[in-house]
Structure formats: structure tokens, C-alpha cells
């Protein structure tokens, strides 16, 4: 069984600061990290492999520096890693990204055993784009069932039983057969740190394979900017609250005014 895990290198956004003069994101000195939900994905793959066997294949579409998150995945215990990197992939929205990822998965599957069952694991969303779209779109490209917002998964033979969060307090338990795609919430597990031997092996015994548009035989109309349908028209920094107000009146009046203001601030 092949277990594909899609991972993404993202900026550690809690550190994001805005340059007040140019009104843009300051990106120097911001560490790049593996998208947190993707790390949950690698951990899930490791847990499944431990119980059921399989080969863990980590994939990422990104510039060459994204190799670092693939090495981290190998350090955690992934068996193989592929970096899909090509200037032709740049400017991709989720439609183009999911297409590119599907090309790599199909190619890797075609090089393996025929009719091999597989599982595709994605983080539910990435902390920079936050779209939660690549998972379902990838499942559609591969023609396999998808289950999103997953907080628990169990495997038995070729069946998976999954707990999906569909309301804040409601969980639905769904069963489907492999091959399938699941996208995970952070509550699914607590990723373990790689071991020191794991890190040494990731750099000395394993490799990151580079795939470009030529190797993937990609149709230029479906990748990168040309394969995208959404475009960024403009960006802006949301207004931060400036004023400091002391409310007045009776306690009831102040509380009412406070709640009114919070309502306008869309707290409720």
C-alpha cells in the first residue's frame, strides 16, 4: 500500500509583521515551517505504517527551498520524498496545484504494482492560503472518494472508518474503501519529533527526488498561472483598531454598549 502525504512549506505566520511605510508583509527573518496540519499527516502515515505496513511518500510543490520540509518528513520516517519544482508551476491557484500534484501521484503509481491500493493524506488547510481546497480538488483529479475535516481514522483491510467534524459539536462516522483521500484537522494526533537517527538517515541514506514539468509531461494549460482560474486583484492590510474608549453610564448601559460594539466588530 502506498501512503501519499502532501506537504507544504509555509511562513510561520505568527511572526508576520507589516511594514507600516509600504503596507506590505515583512518576509525577511520569518522562519519557514512545514504546514502544521501536514505534519499531522506525516504522523498519521507513520502510525498507519506501523500498524498496517506500507510505503510513505511525501510530496510537495514548491521552490527548491521547500526541500527542507521534505527532509523533515524523511527525518520523521517517510520513505520517499518528491519535490515538484519548476518555474512553470509558479503562480498556481488551487486548481493548478491540485492538477500538478495529481500528475506526480499518477506517475508514481504507474511505476509501481498494478492495482495497488493507496491512501492520500493532506492537511485540511495551509496556514498561509487557508483555502482547504487542494485536498478535495486532488481527490477529484484522481477520481477517488474524499473525506475532509477528519479528526480520527482507522483502517481495516481496504476499508477506512473516519470521524469527520461537520458541526462544532457533531461528528459523523463515515466508512469508505481505498483508494481514498483524507484531509486532517490538527486534533487527529500529536506529531512526534524526528529521532536523531532519523535525521541522520534523512540526509545520508534517503533522497529528495526533483520532478519538473517535463518529467511529469505536464500540459502547460493546466499548470502554473495559465492553469489557474482565480487571480489576486489586490491586497490590503486590514484596519487595526486605533481608538481607546472609556464607556460611561450605569453598569447595564455600559454592558449594553459594549456588546453592541462587539457585535459590530463581528465578535458574535
Amino acid at each position, binding site marked *: 500500500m502506498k501512503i501519499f502525504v502532501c506537504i507544504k512549506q509555509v511562513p510561520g505566520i505568527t511572526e*508576520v509583521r*507589516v511594514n507600516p511605510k509600504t503596507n*506590505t*508583509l515583512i518576509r525577511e527573518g520569518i522562519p519557514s515551517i512545514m504546514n502544521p496540519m501536514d505534519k499531522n499527516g506525516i504522523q498519521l502515515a507513520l502510525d498507519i505504517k506501523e500498524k498496517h505496513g506500507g510505503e510513505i511518500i511525501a510530496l510537495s510543490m514548491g521552490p527548491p527551498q521547500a526541500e527542507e520540509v521534505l527532509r523533515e518528513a524523511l527525518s520523521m520516517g517517510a520513505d520517499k520524498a518528491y519535490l515538484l519544482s519548476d518555474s*512553470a508551476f*509558479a*503562480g498556481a491557484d*488551487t*486548481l493548478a496545484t*491540485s492538477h500538478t500534484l495529481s500528475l506526480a501521484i499518477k506517475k508514481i503509481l504507474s511505476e509501481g504494482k498494478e492495482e495497488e491500493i493507496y491512501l492520500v493524506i493532506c492537511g485540511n488547510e495551509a496556514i*498561509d492560503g*487557508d*483555502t*482547504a*481546497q*487542494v*485536498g*478535495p*480538488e486532488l481527490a*477529484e483529479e484522481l477520481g477517488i*472518494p*474524499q473525506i*475532509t475535516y477528519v479528526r480520527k481514522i482507522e483502517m481495516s483491510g481496504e476499508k477506512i*472508518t473516519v470521524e*469527520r467534524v*461537520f*458541526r462544532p459539536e*457533531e*461528528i*459523523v*462516522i*463515515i466508512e*469508505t474503501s481505498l483508494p481514498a483521500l483524507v484531509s486532517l484537522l490538527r486534533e487527529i494526533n500529536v506529531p512526534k519529533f524526528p529521532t536523531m537517527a532519523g535525521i541522520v538517515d534523512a540526509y545520508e541514506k534517503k533522497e529528495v527526488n526533483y520532478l519538473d514539468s517535463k518529467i511529469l509531461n505536464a500540459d502547460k*494549460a493546466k499548470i*502554473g*498561472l*495559465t492553469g489557474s*482560474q*482565480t*487571480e*489576486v*486583484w*489586490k*491586497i*490590503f*492590510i*486590514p484596519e487595526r*483598531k486605533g481608538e*481607546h*474608549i*472609556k*464607556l460611561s453610564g450605569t*453598569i447595564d448601559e455600559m*454592558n*449594553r454598549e*459594549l*456588546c453592541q460594539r462587539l457585535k459590530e466588530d*463581528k*465578535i*458574535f
Partner: protein
Amino acid sequence: MSIRIDDEICTGCESCVANCPYGALEVIDGKACVSDDCNLCGACVDSCPVDAIILEREEFKIEKMDITQYKGIWVVAEHYKNKIHDVAFQLLGKGRELANILKTNLTLVILGADFDDKLDEISQYGQDKIIYVKSKILKNYYSDLYVKTLTELIQENKPEIVLIGATPTGRDFAPRISKRLHAGLTADCTGLEIDPDTGNLLQTRPTFGGNIMATIRTPNSRPQMATVRPGIFKIPEKVKKDVKIRKIDYDYTEKDSVSKIVKVITKEKSKVNLEDAEIIVAGGRGVGAKENFKIIEELAKVLNAEVGGSRVAVELDWIKHDQQVGQTGKTVSPRLYIACGISGAIQHVVGMQGADIIVAINRDENAPIFKVAHYGIVGDLHKVIPTLIEEVKRVRAEETL
């Protein structure tokens, strides 16, 4: 594919610099320069007042869609236990506004089982039409059946805009439909507008954890799809009008879905890290005693918030160390931070000044906390908080119809 700046036209006005989400543009010696951080997203091209930025795409045939054939705005509803999610009505409110600008129709689409006797009530939210797909099995949500049915309906009816609630349900089926139709989809929108020049839908959404807002458009594809954050738009006043209802019976059975629903369960509330909390209610010395901390916890409960506190609260054993906010505790940046009985010494403030909205309740009108609080209430928290709790409950009940 590449990007370049025409130096002869560039005036060094820096408009492009501000528009780059990746910080890849810089003006050096009076001319704009692009760095390797460029992601070819094209946000800068339109921002240049003198058209000095050229994004060169490779010339080859892409089949362009005939977008003029697409008309009408759709809102797709989701439901649970026979109750339609509020976001559908919120979107009908906004949808009506957009439909009026585009001079087109607004349709509500429901895939369900038992809505026959509810159609009358549901039709009073400003829509012109309702498409009701009825199938017994659709009492529950089936990912693949929603995708199949909606894709077929969209292909048949060609709406120009499809709006869906950005819930785990909406965000599950919308992307798969968008891929099947190769139509652009924008997730979790907090703003929708019509571009007066082109009639395109302008979809605004937060990125980078809300630190940057992006406005997206999909000029070349139809329908323009968007999932919209619940609670952003208001549910409109009801209005009786003639609504065309189209009921379609589908004969779906369990065998038509690749997934089997085993059962639905209710989950226990999981513990949240303070650093991930959206709302934090914090107590300090002013709370007075451990028993009094209960009202802090109660206020947190009605706000669905996490409980925090200052160092004093930890030392007096009112809260645990991992709930401490401040220099020797945690640094938090929630949407809302309510500081109760906290004086606002710098050692605490450095831990919470990143909050979007800060509310302070303190007896001392000169307490330094009021300098950082956006909304301040001078008063005894033991008197203020109990009535605040009631007011919050009242407002929350008002919000959910």
C-alpha cells in the same frame, strides 16, 4: 512565463510595492525591481498606473469559456436535522443586493428530503426561485451526491455566481465542484462586491491568518464560486413574494454513494491552547479570591472563550501556570481579550497587546490597562461581569434566529 519592468516607463511611484503579497518588489535607484520571491501572481500588474509591468505568458491555445451565457446568482443551502443553516439566509440577503446590481435572478438551491412543508417559510428571504432536489437519502449530507447533483444542475442552468456557506459541509463539496467544472473558487470570503466596469464578482478574504486581506476575481471562468464565512452578512427581513419553485425528485439510494454513514455522535469539548484561542477572558488581582474566579470562567463559557490570567492569579493558585499571560507566561493574540481586575503593568501587557480588540474592566480609572484597552469599563468587576454575562447571552440568542 516571466515578469519584467519596463524601465523607460517606470516612474518609481512604488504603487506596485504595496500590492505585492510576497514582498518581491522594491524600488532601487528610482526603478522598480523584481526579486526571486516573485510568485507570478500578477497582483502588481493592475496596480501600476503607467502599465510598466509586463507579465509575459506563453502563447498557446486555451479554450476560453463563453461567459456571457451565464446568468443568475445561486445560493446553495446546507441543513442538519431538517433545519437550514443560517448562512444560507445571510447569503440570500447579500445575494439579493448583488442580484439587484447585476439585474439578475437570485435562486436558493436545497438538496434534501423533508422540506416540502417548509418551502413557504423558506421562500420569504428575497429569492426569485427555489430549486429543491428531493431524495430521501439526502436527509443526510453525502459529499459525492452533492457534488454530482450540483454539478449537473450548474451545467444545465449556468448561473454566473454560486455562493456557499464556508462550513465543513460547504468547504467539502465546493472545491470538488470547482475542479469538475474548472471554475475558480474563493474560500472563506468576508466581502463580496460587483466590479462596476466588468460585472465580475470581487471576492475578499483573509490570508496569512488574517494579517493580509486579498481580493480575488475569476474573470475567465463561470460560475464564479465563493464559500462565504457565516456571520459576516445579515439575515434579511422576511418579505412575501411570488417565488418560482422547481422540485426535482432524485432516486438516490445508499448504493449511489461511495461512502457509508455509520452514525453521528456528539463530541466533548477539547482543550484549546491559549495561543490558539479566539477569545480570552483573563482575571487579575482585582478578582480577589479563588471563589470569585468563577464569574471569569462563566463569562468565558458564554463567549466560548478560554480562561487566562495575570501572574498574580497563578501565584494565588486561581489558575494554572499554562494559563498565565505575560512576560513570564504566554504571549497571545486573540480576536478579543477581556482583562478583568488586571492593572495593566507592562509585564502583563507585553503578553496580550497583540489582541485585535482589548476590553478592560477595572475599578481604578487610572489603571494603565485603560491605555491599551479599546473599550474600557470603570467599575467593580463583581458587579459588571454578572450583568455582562446576561447581556452576552441575550445578544447571542438574538444572533441565531
